[in-house]
């Protein structure tokens, strides 16, 4: 399936440390995105990387994409307590219409 799967399912780190989350998927994609969700709230788009890109940065976020391995990683540097949230990778592809499919997410807890 197109669906991304994140690893680890949960991650607990100290403030100031880096957090790395991984995502794997199964089919060809047009882009891969990362979203953040605070508990019970809507998802917020963080960053998008296209299938012909290998790395992208946005502030403290760094995303890599390896289409040969069908995997991506999200690195959050110098984490803060406010980064505590669930992070989802989502793959975008044309399958008739354009569909974005989400993985199960990584729950990140940053301890102050």
């Amino acid at each position, binding site marked *: 399936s197109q669906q991304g799967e994140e690893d680890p399912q949960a991650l607990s780190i100290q403030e100031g440390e880096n957090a790395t989350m991984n995502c794997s998927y199964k089919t060809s994609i047009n882009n891969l995105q990362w979203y953040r969700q605070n508990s019970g709230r*809507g*998802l917020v788009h963080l960053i998008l990387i*296209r299938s012909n890109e290998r790395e992208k940065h946005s502030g403290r976020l760094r995303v890599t994409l390896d289409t040969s391995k069908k995997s991506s990683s999200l690195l959050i540097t110098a984490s803060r307590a406010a980064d505590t949230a669930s992070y989802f990778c989502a793959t975008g592809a044309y399958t008739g219409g*354009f*569909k*974005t499919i*989400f993985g199960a*997410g990584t729950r990140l807890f940053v301890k102050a």
Partner: protein
Amino acid sequence: EPEVTQTPSHQVTQMGQEVILRCVPISNHLYFYWYRQILGQKVEFLVSFYNNEISEKSEIFDDQFSVERPDGSNFTLKIRSTKLEDSAMYFCASRAGQNTGELFFGEGSRLTVL
């Protein structure tokens, strides 16, 4: 900043009742989506909508579900006869255009079926 708005924020209904969840996507966006998230679980794709018709739907989106864009601003999800397992958070999202991938989500409508 433009945002996607959803109403109601929470609805409690009896099994078998019809429910309509409403969304106002960002005004110049062309693509509209419904997703659902059962508590603590993954965000599941339900349906995509473009040019006043369904582009794609998942296996979850069976005959009990329908979507409509009745007036050019609202985008509604109707569940005809709710089941207990329909209890979930329902998120509406919109996307600007063909060459943009970013989805803008509303805050969700929590549906509780008793």
